Protein backbone atom coordinates (compact mmCIF):
# COMPACT_ATOMS: atom_id res chain seq x y z
CA UNK A 1 0.00 0.00 0.00
CA UNK A 2 3.05 2.12 0.62
CA UNK A 3 2.55 4.92 -1.84
CA UNK A 4 -1.08 5.63 -0.96
CA UNK A 5 -0.51 7.61 2.25
CA UNK A 6 -3.30 9.25 4.19
CA UNK A 7 -2.57 12.59 2.59
CA UNK A 8 -3.00 11.36 -0.95
CA UNK A 9 -6.30 9.72 -0.15
CA UNK A 10 -7.46 12.79 1.72
CA UNK A 11 -6.68 15.12 -1.20
CA UNK A 12 -8.23 12.62 -3.63
CA UNK A 13 -11.45 12.19 -1.65
CA UNK A 14 -11.65 15.89 -0.70
CA UNK A 15 -9.93 17.81 -3.44
CA UNK A 16 -9.11 21.42 -2.48
CA UNK A 17 -10.09 24.24 -4.81
CA UNK A 18 -12.09 21.96 -7.05
CA UNK A 19 -14.21 23.84 -9.56
CA UNK A 20 -13.86 26.53 -12.21
CA UNK A 21 -13.18 30.25 -12.35
CA UNK A 22 -14.86 32.81 -14.56
CA UNK A 23 -12.56 35.00 -16.62
CA UNK A 24 -9.32 33.51 -15.36
CA UNK A 25 -5.97 34.92 -16.47
CA UNK A 26 -4.73 31.45 -17.06
CA UNK A 27 -6.90 28.57 -18.26
CA UNK A 28 -5.22 25.41 -19.39
CA UNK A 29 -5.88 21.71 -19.91
CA UNK A 30 -3.43 18.82 -19.97
CA UNK A 31 -4.13 15.14 -20.37
CA UNK A 32 -2.30 11.89 -20.00
CA UNK A 33 -3.44 9.59 -22.79
CA UNK A 34 -2.01 6.55 -21.01
CA UNK A 35 -4.36 6.89 -18.05
CA UNK A 36 -7.11 8.93 -19.64
CA UNK A 37 -6.49 11.62 -17.01
CA UNK A 38 -7.53 15.23 -17.73
CA UNK A 39 -6.65 18.19 -15.56
CA UNK A 40 -7.89 21.76 -16.12
CA UNK A 41 -6.35 24.65 -14.20
CA UNK A 42 -7.84 28.13 -13.72
CA UNK A 43 -5.75 30.92 -12.23
CA UNK A 44 -6.53 34.55 -11.45
CA UNK A 45 -3.64 36.90 -10.80
CA UNK A 46 -3.28 40.00 -8.68
CA UNK A 47 -1.95 43.13 -10.29
CA UNK A 48 1.42 42.41 -8.67
CA UNK A 49 1.56 39.09 -10.54
CA UNK A 50 0.81 36.77 -7.65
CA UNK A 51 -1.89 34.09 -7.62
CA UNK A 52 -5.13 35.57 -6.37
CA UNK A 53 -7.32 32.56 -6.91
CA UNK A 54 -6.90 29.05 -8.33
CA UNK A 55 -9.23 26.19 -9.09
CA UNK A 56 -8.92 22.90 -10.91
CA UNK A 57 -11.26 20.40 -12.40
CA UNK A 58 -10.92 17.14 -14.31
CA UNK A 59 -10.86 13.42 -13.78
CA UNK A 60 -8.13 10.98 -13.11
CA UNK A 61 -6.47 8.58 -10.78
CA UNK A 62 -5.85 9.31 -7.13
CA UNK A 63 -2.31 10.49 -7.79
CA UNK A 64 -3.18 13.06 -10.43
CA UNK A 65 -6.18 14.39 -8.54
CA UNK A 66 -4.26 14.60 -5.26
CA UNK A 67 -1.34 16.23 -7.06
CA UNK A 68 -3.64 18.81 -8.60
CA UNK A 69 -5.33 19.47 -5.31
CA UNK A 70 -2.10 19.95 -3.40
CA UNK A 71 -0.69 22.05 -6.23
CA UNK A 72 -3.51 24.55 -5.85
CA UNK A 73 -2.59 24.85 -2.18
CA UNK A 74 1.07 25.31 -2.95
CA UNK A 75 0.62 28.05 -5.52
CA UNK A 76 -2.00 30.11 -3.73
CA UNK A 77 -0.55 33.59 -3.17
CA UNK A 78 2.74 32.73 -4.88
CA UNK A 79 4.45 34.96 -7.44
CA UNK A 80 4.68 33.87 -11.11
CA UNK A 81 8.45 33.61 -10.81
CA UNK A 82 8.09 31.18 -7.94
CA UNK A 83 5.65 29.04 -9.93
CA UNK A 84 8.20 28.51 -12.64
CA UNK A 85 10.56 26.90 -10.18
CA UNK A 86 8.07 24.28 -8.98
CA UNK A 87 8.91 20.68 -9.80
CA UNK A 88 7.91 17.15 -8.97
CA UNK A 89 9.83 17.19 -5.70
CA UNK A 90 7.51 19.86 -4.35
CA UNK A 91 4.49 17.71 -5.08
CA UNK A 92 6.04 14.54 -3.72
CA UNK A 93 7.02 16.34 -0.55
CA UNK A 94 3.68 18.06 -0.10
CA UNK A 95 1.88 14.71 -0.44
CA UNK A 96 4.34 12.96 1.82
CA UNK A 97 5.07 10.33 -0.84
CA UNK A 98 7.85 7.84 -1.53
CA UNK A 99 9.22 7.56 -5.09
CA UNK A 100 6.26 6.54 -7.23
CA UNK A 101 8.35 4.84 -9.95
CA UNK A 102 8.64 5.75 -13.64
CA UNK A 103 5.10 4.94 -14.77
CA UNK A 104 3.09 6.63 -12.04
CA UNK A 105 5.30 9.71 -11.86
CA UNK A 106 3.49 10.85 -15.01
CA UNK A 107 0.27 11.07 -13.03
CA UNK A 108 1.88 13.22 -10.36
CA UNK A 109 3.45 15.44 -12.99
CA UNK A 110 0.29 16.09 -14.95
CA UNK A 111 -0.90 19.11 -12.91
CA UNK A 112 2.58 20.66 -12.95
CA UNK A 113 2.75 20.15 -16.68
CA UNK A 114 -0.58 21.91 -17.01
CA UNK A 115 0.69 24.78 -14.89
CA UNK A 116 3.89 25.20 -16.91
CA UNK A 117 1.96 25.12 -20.16
CA UNK A 118 -0.45 27.73 -18.81
CA UNK A 119 2.42 29.97 -17.71
CA UNK A 120 4.13 29.77 -21.08
CA UNK A 121 0.93 30.63 -22.90
CA UNK A 122 0.20 33.49 -20.49
CA UNK A 123 3.66 35.01 -20.84
CA UNK A 124 3.53 34.79 -24.63
CA UNK A 125 0.24 36.60 -24.60
CA UNK A 126 1.67 39.27 -22.29
CA UNK A 127 4.64 39.83 -24.55
CA UNK A 128 2.52 40.19 -27.65
CA UNK A 129 0.07 42.47 -25.80
CA UNK A 130 2.87 44.76 -24.63
CA UNK A 131 4.21 44.90 -28.17
CA UNK A 132 0.94 45.87 -29.76
Amino acid at each position, binding site marked *: *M*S*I*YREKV*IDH*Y*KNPRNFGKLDNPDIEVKESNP*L*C*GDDIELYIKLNTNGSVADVKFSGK*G*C*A*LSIAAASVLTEIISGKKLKELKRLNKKDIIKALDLPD*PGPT*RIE*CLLLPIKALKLGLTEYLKREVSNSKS
Partner: protein
Amino acid sequence: MKLKGINVEAIRKDFPILKRKINGKSLIYFDNAATSQKPRQVINAISKYYSLYNANIHRTIHKLGVEATEAYENVRDKVVKFINAKHREEVLFVRNTTEAINLVAYSWGRANISKGDTILLTEMEHHSNIIPWQLLAKEKSANLKYIGITDDGFLKDDEIKEYLDNHPKILAITHVSNVLGTINPIKEIVRYAHKNGVIVLVDGAQSVPHMPVNVQDLDCDFLAFSSHKMLGPTGVGILYGKRELLENMEPFQGGGDMIKEVHLNYAKWNDLPWKFEAGTANIADVIGFGAAIDYLNKIGMENVRAHEVDLTSYALNKMSEIENLKIYGPIDVNYRCGVISFNIGNIHPHDVATILDSEGIAIRSGHHCAQPLMERLNVPAVNRASFYIYNTKEEIDIMVNVLKEIKEVFKI
Protein backbone atom coordinates in the same frame (compact mmCIF):
# COMPACT_ATOMS: atom_id res chain seq x y z
CA MET B 1 -2.24 -29.42 -4.37
CA LYS B 2 -3.31 -31.46 -7.39
CA LEU B 3 -5.88 -29.74 -9.55
CA LYS B 4 -7.60 -31.81 -12.24
CA GLY B 5 -4.54 -33.69 -13.32
CA ILE B 6 -2.21 -30.73 -13.00
CA ASN B 7 0.57 -30.84 -10.46
CA VAL B 8 0.94 -27.12 -9.88
CA GLU B 9 3.61 -27.48 -7.25
CA ALA B 10 5.85 -29.38 -9.63
CA ILE B 11 5.08 -26.95 -12.43
CA ARG B 12 5.97 -23.94 -10.29
CA LYS B 13 9.45 -25.36 -9.73
CA ASP B 14 10.06 -25.11 -13.45
CA PHE B 15 9.53 -21.33 -13.54
CA PRO B 16 12.58 -19.55 -12.13
CA ILE B 17 10.83 -16.17 -12.02
CA LEU B 18 8.36 -17.42 -9.44
CA LYS B 19 11.16 -17.22 -6.87
CA ARG B 20 11.32 -13.48 -7.43
CA LYS B 21 10.42 -11.14 -4.57
CA ILE B 22 8.65 -7.89 -5.39
CA ASN B 23 8.80 -5.28 -2.64
CA GLY B 24 9.70 -8.08 -0.29
CA LYS B 25 6.66 -10.18 -1.26
CA SER B 26 6.59 -13.33 -3.38
CA LEU B 27 5.65 -12.52 -6.94
CA ILE B 28 2.07 -13.34 -7.85
CA TYR B 29 1.93 -13.12 -11.60
CA PHE B 30 -1.59 -12.50 -12.89
CA ASP B 31 -0.65 -10.75 -16.15
CA ASN B 32 -0.64 -13.87 -18.28
CA ALA B 33 -2.91 -12.52 -20.99
CA ALA B 34 -0.19 -9.95 -21.74
CA THR B 35 2.62 -12.48 -21.74
CA SER B 36 3.21 -15.74 -19.91
CA GLN B 37 6.25 -16.70 -17.88
CA LYS B 38 8.72 -19.28 -19.23
CA PRO B 39 9.78 -22.62 -17.79
CA ARG B 40 13.48 -23.49 -17.55
CA GLN B 41 12.94 -26.04 -20.34
CA VAL B 42 12.29 -23.16 -22.75
CA ILE B 43 15.06 -20.95 -21.41
CA ASN B 44 17.48 -23.85 -21.63
CA ALA B 45 16.49 -24.78 -25.17
CA ILE B 46 17.49 -21.28 -26.27
CA SER B 47 20.79 -21.30 -24.35
CA LYS B 48 21.56 -24.76 -25.67
CA TYR B 49 20.97 -23.67 -29.24
CA TYR B 50 23.36 -20.75 -28.90
CA SER B 51 25.93 -22.79 -27.01
CA LEU B 52 25.94 -25.89 -29.19
CA TYR B 53 24.54 -25.51 -32.70
CA ASN B 54 23.85 -21.91 -33.59
CA ALA B 55 23.99 -21.40 -37.37
CA ASN B 56 21.98 -19.95 -40.19
CA ILE B 57 19.50 -22.41 -41.65
CA HIS B 58 18.49 -23.88 -45.02
CA ARG B 59 20.95 -24.65 -47.83
CA THR B 60 23.76 -25.16 -45.35
CA ILE B 61 26.25 -27.93 -45.72
CA HIS B 62 28.16 -27.67 -42.47
CA LYS B 63 27.00 -29.67 -39.50
CA LEU B 64 25.85 -26.79 -37.29
CA GLY B 65 23.66 -25.53 -40.09
CA VAL B 66 22.19 -28.98 -40.69
CA GLU B 67 21.39 -29.40 -37.01
CA ALA B 68 19.86 -25.92 -36.74
CA THR B 69 17.73 -26.47 -39.84
CA GLU B 70 16.47 -29.78 -38.53
CA ALA B 71 15.60 -28.33 -35.14
CA TYR B 72 13.83 -25.35 -36.69
CA GLU B 73 11.78 -27.41 -39.12
CA ASN B 74 10.94 -29.95 -36.40
CA VAL B 75 9.17 -27.20 -34.50
CA ARG B 76 6.99 -26.61 -37.53
CA ASP B 77 5.90 -30.24 -37.33
CA LYS B 78 5.16 -29.78 -33.64
CA VAL B 79 2.94 -26.79 -34.38
CA VAL B 80 1.19 -28.70 -37.16
CA LYS B 81 0.30 -31.42 -34.68
CA PHE B 82 -0.54 -29.00 -31.87
CA ILE B 83 -3.29 -27.27 -33.87
CA ASN B 84 -4.01 -30.32 -36.06
CA ALA B 85 -3.23 -28.65 -39.37
CA LYS B 86 -3.64 -30.88 -42.40
CA HIS B 87 -0.36 -29.96 -44.10
CA ARG B 88 2.98 -28.71 -42.84
CA GLU B 89 3.00 -26.03 -45.54
CA GLU B 90 0.11 -24.39 -43.71
CA VAL B 91 2.16 -23.27 -40.72
CA LEU B 92 4.21 -20.08 -41.11
CA PHE B 93 6.60 -18.61 -38.58
CA VAL B 94 6.14 -14.87 -38.09
CA ARG B 95 6.97 -12.47 -35.21
CA ASN B 96 3.66 -12.43 -33.33
CA THR B 97 -0.10 -12.47 -33.73
CA THR B 98 0.03 -8.90 -34.94
CA GLU B 99 2.35 -9.72 -37.81
CA ALA B 100 0.30 -12.79 -38.73
CA ILE B 101 -2.79 -10.62 -39.15
CA ASN B 102 -0.87 -7.93 -41.03
CA LEU B 103 0.48 -10.58 -43.38
CA VAL B 104 -3.06 -11.63 -44.28
CA ALA B 105 -4.25 -8.03 -44.58
CA TYR B 106 -1.36 -7.22 -46.93
CA SER B 107 -1.01 -10.37 -48.94
CA TRP B 108 -4.57 -11.71 -49.10
CA GLY B 109 -6.23 -8.37 -48.48
CA ARG B 110 -4.48 -6.28 -51.12
CA ALA B 111 -5.44 -8.84 -53.76
CA ASN B 112 -8.98 -9.60 -52.65
CA ILE B 113 -10.49 -6.45 -51.16
CA SER B 114 -11.79 -3.81 -53.55
CA LYS B 115 -13.72 -0.59 -53.31
CA GLY B 116 -17.03 -1.02 -51.52
CA ASP B 117 -16.21 -4.45 -50.09
CA THR B 118 -16.94 -5.06 -46.45
CA ILE B 119 -14.49 -6.31 -43.82
CA LEU B 120 -16.34 -7.65 -40.81
CA LEU B 121 -14.90 -7.38 -37.29
CA THR B 122 -16.38 -7.43 -33.81
CA GLU B 123 -16.52 -4.85 -31.04
CA MET B 124 -14.32 -7.03 -28.84
CA GLU B 125 -11.25 -7.11 -31.08
CA HIS B 126 -7.74 -6.31 -29.95
CA HIS B 127 -6.13 -3.38 -31.80
CA SER B 128 -4.00 -5.93 -33.65
CA ASN B 129 -7.15 -7.23 -35.29
CA ILE B 130 -8.49 -3.75 -36.04
CA ILE B 131 -5.69 -1.51 -37.30
CA PRO B 132 -4.47 -3.77 -40.15
CA TRP B 133 -8.03 -3.80 -41.48
CA GLN B 134 -8.44 -0.05 -41.03
CA LEU B 135 -5.26 0.49 -43.05
CA LEU B 136 -6.53 -1.90 -45.73
CA ALA B 137 -10.01 -0.39 -45.80
CA LYS B 138 -8.60 3.10 -46.16
CA GLU B 139 -6.29 2.08 -48.99
CA LYS B 140 -9.02 0.24 -50.88
CA SER B 141 -12.02 2.39 -49.92
CA ALA B 142 -13.62 -0.65 -48.34
CA ASN B 143 -16.03 -0.65 -45.41
CA LEU B 144 -15.54 -1.85 -41.86
CA LYS B 145 -18.46 -3.33 -39.94
CA TYR B 146 -18.40 -4.42 -36.32
CA ILE B 147 -20.58 -7.13 -34.78
CA GLY B 148 -21.87 -5.70 -31.52
CA ILE B 149 -21.84 -7.28 -28.08
CA THR B 150 -24.52 -7.80 -25.47
CA ASP B 151 -24.31 -6.38 -21.98
CA ASP B 152 -23.22 -9.73 -20.61
CA GLY B 153 -20.28 -9.86 -23.02
CA PHE B 154 -21.40 -12.09 -25.89
CA LEU B 155 -21.48 -11.33 -29.58
CA LYS B 156 -24.98 -10.47 -30.73
CA ASP B 157 -26.28 -13.57 -32.50
CA ASP B 158 -28.62 -11.69 -34.76
CA GLU B 159 -25.89 -9.31 -35.89
CA ILE B 160 -23.53 -12.20 -36.67
CA LYS B 161 -26.14 -13.60 -39.04
CA GLU B 162 -27.30 -10.29 -40.43
CA TYR B 163 -23.79 -9.06 -41.22
CA LEU B 164 -22.66 -12.38 -42.67
CA ASP B 165 -25.78 -12.54 -44.83
CA ASN B 166 -24.62 -9.30 -46.40
CA HIS B 167 -21.55 -11.09 -47.79
CA PRO B 168 -18.55 -9.33 -46.37
CA LYS B 169 -15.30 -10.50 -47.96
CA ILE B 170 -13.72 -11.54 -44.70
CA LEU B 171 -14.59 -11.92 -41.05
CA ALA B 172 -11.68 -11.28 -38.68
CA ILE B 173 -12.70 -12.35 -35.22
CA THR B 174 -11.10 -13.18 -31.93
CA HIS B 175 -11.52 -16.66 -30.52
CA VAL B 176 -11.31 -15.43 -26.95
CA SER B 177 -11.63 -11.81 -25.84
CA ASN B 178 -8.54 -10.54 -24.03
CA VAL B 179 -10.74 -8.31 -21.87
CA LEU B 180 -14.03 -10.14 -21.34
CA GLY B 181 -12.65 -13.66 -21.51
CA THR B 182 -15.61 -14.60 -23.72
CA ILE B 183 -15.07 -17.73 -25.82
CA ASN B 184 -16.75 -17.11 -29.15
CA PRO B 185 -18.50 -20.05 -30.89
CA ILE B 186 -16.03 -20.02 -33.76
CA LYS B 187 -16.98 -23.38 -35.26
CA GLU B 188 -20.61 -22.36 -35.72
CA ILE B 189 -19.67 -18.89 -36.93
CA VAL B 190 -17.23 -20.34 -39.48
CA ARG B 191 -19.88 -22.73 -40.77
CA TYR B 192 -22.32 -19.88 -41.25
CA ALA B 193 -19.66 -17.66 -42.78
CA HIS B 194 -18.61 -20.31 -45.27
CA LYS B 195 -22.22 -20.79 -46.34
CA ASN B 196 -22.04 -17.15 -47.33
CA GLY B 197 -18.66 -17.52 -48.98
CA VAL B 198 -16.92 -15.46 -46.31
CA ILE B 199 -13.28 -16.12 -45.44
CA VAL B 200 -12.67 -16.30 -41.68
CA LEU B 201 -9.49 -15.24 -39.87
CA VAL B 202 -9.41 -16.24 -36.22
CA ASP B 203 -7.29 -14.32 -33.72
CA GLY B 204 -6.17 -17.17 -31.48
CA ALA B 205 -3.81 -15.14 -29.29
CA GLN B 206 -5.93 -15.84 -26.19
CA SER B 207 -7.31 -19.26 -27.10
CA VAL B 208 -4.43 -21.39 -28.38
CA PRO B 209 -2.43 -20.94 -25.14
CA HIS B 210 -5.37 -21.89 -22.95
CA MET B 211 -7.46 -24.65 -24.52
CA PRO B 212 -7.27 -27.34 -27.21
CA VAL B 213 -7.65 -25.68 -30.62
CA ASN B 214 -8.14 -27.80 -33.72
CA VAL B 215 -8.06 -25.92 -37.00
CA GLN B 216 -9.57 -28.74 -39.02
CA ASP B 217 -12.46 -28.96 -36.60
CA LEU B 218 -12.98 -25.18 -36.51
CA ASP B 219 -12.48 -25.11 -40.29
CA CYS B 220 -11.23 -21.50 -40.07
CA ASP B 221 -9.24 -20.18 -43.02
CA PHE B 222 -6.54 -18.43 -41.00
CA LEU B 223 -5.48 -18.65 -37.38
CA ALA B 224 -2.99 -16.31 -35.71
CA PHE B 225 -1.26 -16.72 -32.34
CA SER B 226 1.87 -15.81 -30.36
CA SER B 227 4.52 -17.96 -28.72
CA HIS B 228 5.12 -15.52 -25.87
CA LYS B 229 1.64 -16.00 -24.46
CA MET B 230 2.05 -19.78 -24.24
CA LEU B 231 5.30 -20.31 -22.33
CA GLY B 232 7.44 -19.62 -25.39
CA PRO B 233 9.90 -16.82 -26.16
CA THR B 234 9.07 -13.39 -27.52
CA GLY B 235 9.63 -12.84 -31.24
CA VAL B 236 7.72 -15.84 -32.60
CA GLY B 237 4.16 -16.02 -33.84
CA ILE B 238 2.28 -18.43 -36.02
CA LEU B 239 0.08 -17.85 -39.01
CA TYR B 240 -1.89 -20.91 -39.98
CA GLY B 241 -3.58 -20.66 -43.38
CA LYS B 242 -5.33 -23.18 -45.58
CA ARG B 243 -2.94 -24.37 -48.26
CA GLU B 244 -5.01 -23.30 -51.24
CA LEU B 245 -5.30 -19.79 -49.88
CA LEU B 246 -1.62 -19.49 -49.09
CA GLU B 247 -0.67 -20.91 -52.46
CA ASN B 248 -2.62 -18.23 -54.24
CA MET B 249 -1.24 -15.38 -52.19
CA GLU B 250 1.66 -13.20 -53.24
CA PRO B 251 4.56 -12.98 -50.76
CA PHE B 252 4.38 -10.36 -48.03
CA GLN B 253 8.03 -9.53 -47.37
CA GLY B 254 10.75 -10.17 -49.95
CA GLY B 255 14.29 -11.31 -49.26
CA GLY B 256 16.54 -14.27 -48.66
CA ASP B 257 15.08 -17.75 -48.21
CA MET B 258 11.67 -16.98 -49.75
CA ILE B 259 12.87 -17.34 -53.33
CA LYS B 260 13.85 -20.09 -55.70
CA GLU B 261 15.46 -17.95 -58.36
CA VAL B 262 16.31 -14.29 -58.56
CA HIS B 263 17.09 -12.43 -61.75
CA LEU B 264 17.59 -8.73 -62.25
CA ASN B 265 13.99 -8.11 -63.14
CA TYR B 266 12.01 -11.00 -61.75
CA ALA B 267 12.12 -13.79 -59.22
CA LYS B 268 10.46 -17.14 -58.61
CA TRP B 269 9.06 -17.72 -55.15
CA ASN B 270 10.00 -20.59 -52.96
CA ASP B 271 7.48 -23.30 -52.04
CA LEU B 272 5.23 -22.97 -49.03
CA PRO B 273 5.81 -22.37 -46.17
CA TRP B 274 9.11 -20.61 -46.95
CA LYS B 275 7.52 -18.24 -49.48
CA PHE B 276 6.37 -16.24 -46.48
CA GLU B 277 9.52 -16.43 -44.36
CA ALA B 278 11.88 -13.76 -45.69
CA GLY B 279 15.31 -13.16 -44.25
CA THR B 280 17.06 -14.93 -41.42
CA ALA B 281 14.39 -16.50 -39.25
CA ASN B 282 14.21 -16.12 -35.50
CA ILE B 283 15.82 -19.55 -35.26
CA ALA B 284 16.63 -19.64 -31.55
CA ASP B 285 13.17 -18.58 -30.48
CA VAL B 286 11.40 -20.94 -32.83
CA ILE B 287 13.41 -23.72 -31.18
CA GLY B 288 12.48 -22.31 -27.77
CA PHE B 289 8.85 -22.31 -28.85
CA GLY B 290 9.20 -26.01 -29.65
CA ALA B 291 10.18 -26.61 -26.03
CA ALA B 292 7.10 -24.66 -24.92
CA ILE B 293 4.84 -26.86 -27.05
CA ASP B 294 6.49 -29.96 -25.59
CA TYR B 295 5.86 -28.60 -22.13
CA LEU B 296 2.18 -27.88 -22.80
CA ASN B 297 1.73 -31.26 -24.46
CA LYS B 298 3.15 -33.00 -21.42
CA ILE B 299 0.53 -31.31 -19.26
CA GLY B 300 -2.18 -31.72 -21.87
CA MET B 301 -4.24 -28.81 -23.16
CA GLU B 302 -7.42 -30.34 -21.68
CA ASN B 303 -5.78 -30.11 -18.28
CA VAL B 304 -4.58 -26.57 -18.88
CA ARG B 305 -8.15 -25.62 -19.61
CA ALA B 306 -9.54 -27.54 -16.64
CA HIS B 307 -7.09 -25.88 -14.27
CA GLU B 308 -8.07 -22.45 -15.55
CA VAL B 309 -11.78 -23.21 -15.29
CA ASP B 310 -11.19 -24.22 -11.70
CA LEU B 311 -9.19 -21.09 -10.86
CA THR B 312 -11.53 -18.80 -12.72
CA SER B 313 -14.72 -20.00 -11.08
CA TYR B 314 -12.97 -19.78 -7.71
CA ALA B 315 -11.87 -16.22 -8.41
CA LEU B 316 -15.23 -15.16 -9.83
CA ASN B 317 -16.92 -16.42 -6.66
CA LYS B 318 -14.53 -14.70 -4.32
CA MET B 319 -14.48 -11.46 -6.24
CA SER B 320 -18.22 -11.18 -6.64
CA GLU B 321 -18.49 -11.20 -2.84
CA ILE B 322 -16.74 -7.82 -2.80
CA GLU B 323 -19.28 -5.06 -2.82
CA ASN B 324 -18.87 -2.39 -5.50
CA LEU B 325 -16.59 -4.65 -7.51
CA LYS B 326 -17.86 -4.93 -11.06
CA ILE B 327 -16.78 -7.85 -13.23
CA TYR B 328 -16.98 -7.58 -17.03
CA GLY B 329 -17.83 -10.47 -19.35
CA PRO B 330 -19.74 -13.74 -19.03
CA ILE B 331 -20.28 -15.23 -15.59
CA ASP B 332 -20.56 -18.86 -16.71
CA VAL B 333 -17.03 -20.33 -16.80
CA ASN B 334 -18.04 -22.64 -19.63
CA TYR B 335 -18.14 -19.63 -21.90
CA ARG B 336 -15.07 -17.80 -20.69
CA CYS B 337 -11.36 -18.12 -20.20
CA GLY B 338 -9.17 -17.25 -17.23
CA VAL B 339 -9.20 -13.51 -17.85
CA ILE B 340 -11.08 -11.41 -15.29
CA SER B 341 -11.54 -7.71 -15.96
CA PHE B 342 -12.99 -5.61 -13.18
CA ASN B 343 -13.34 -2.22 -11.56
CA ILE B 344 -13.79 -1.30 -7.92
CA GLY B 345 -16.23 1.54 -7.47
CA ASN B 346 -14.76 4.49 -9.28
CA ILE B 347 -11.19 3.85 -8.16
CA HIS B 348 -8.93 4.34 -11.15
CA PRO B 349 -7.47 1.00 -12.34
CA HIS B 350 -3.98 2.45 -12.22
CA ASP B 351 -4.38 3.05 -8.51
CA VAL B 352 -5.58 -0.52 -8.02
CA ALA B 353 -2.69 -1.91 -10.06
CA THR B 354 -0.16 0.21 -8.20
CA ILE B 355 -1.35 -0.99 -4.83
CA LEU B 356 -1.46 -4.63 -5.96
CA ASP B 357 2.08 -4.20 -7.25
CA SER B 358 3.26 -2.94 -3.89
CA GLU B 359 2.06 -6.30 -2.56
CA GLY B 360 3.91 -8.23 -5.28
CA ILE B 361 0.82 -8.89 -7.38
CA ALA B 362 1.17 -8.17 -11.10
CA ILE B 363 -2.07 -7.42 -12.92
CA ARG B 364 -2.66 -5.17 -15.90
CA SER B 365 -4.76 -2.03 -15.99
CA GLY B 366 -5.66 0.21 -18.86
CA HIS B 367 -7.45 -0.19 -22.15
CA HIS B 368 -5.77 -3.54 -22.95
CA CYS B 369 -5.37 -2.58 -26.59
CA ALA B 370 -9.13 -2.69 -26.97
CA GLN B 371 -10.23 0.93 -26.95
CA PRO B 372 -13.39 0.35 -29.00
CA LEU B 373 -14.45 -2.23 -26.41
CA MET B 374 -13.71 0.27 -23.60
CA GLU B 375 -15.96 2.76 -25.36
CA ARG B 376 -18.64 0.08 -25.64
CA LEU B 377 -18.30 -0.71 -21.93
CA ASN B 378 -18.25 3.02 -21.26
CA VAL B 379 -15.15 2.92 -19.07
CA PRO B 380 -11.76 4.54 -19.68
CA ALA B 381 -9.93 1.51 -18.34
CA VAL B 382 -10.29 -1.73 -16.41
CA ASN B 383 -8.18 -3.93 -14.18
CA ARG B 384 -7.40 -7.38 -15.52
CA ALA B 385 -6.18 -10.46 -13.68
CA SER B 386 -5.39 -13.42 -15.94
CA PHE B 387 -4.29 -16.91 -14.96
CA TYR B 388 -2.10 -19.72 -16.22
CA ILE B 389 -0.93 -23.16 -15.22
CA TYR B 390 1.33 -22.02 -12.39
CA ASN B 391 -1.30 -19.96 -10.59
CA THR B 392 -3.06 -21.15 -7.45
CA LYS B 393 -6.16 -20.50 -5.37
CA GLU B 394 -3.90 -19.28 -2.57
CA GLU B 395 -2.64 -16.54 -4.86
CA ILE B 396 -6.23 -15.58 -5.67
CA ASP B 397 -7.00 -15.38 -1.94
CA ILE B 398 -4.10 -12.99 -1.43
CA MET B 399 -5.26 -10.78 -4.28
CA VAL B 400 -8.84 -10.75 -2.99
CA ASN B 401 -7.62 -9.66 0.43
CA VAL B 402 -5.64 -6.80 -1.05
CA LEU B 403 -8.65 -5.74 -3.10
CA LYS B 404 -10.63 -5.54 0.13
CA GLU B 405 -7.89 -3.47 1.74
CA ILE B 406 -7.91 -1.13 -1.23
CA LYS B 407 -11.58 -0.46 -0.59
CA GLU B 408 -10.73 0.41 2.98
CA VAL B 409 -7.87 2.73 2.01
CA PHE B 410 -10.12 4.48 -0.45
CA LYS B 411 -12.94 4.49 2.05
CA ILE B 412 -15.59 3.03 -0.24
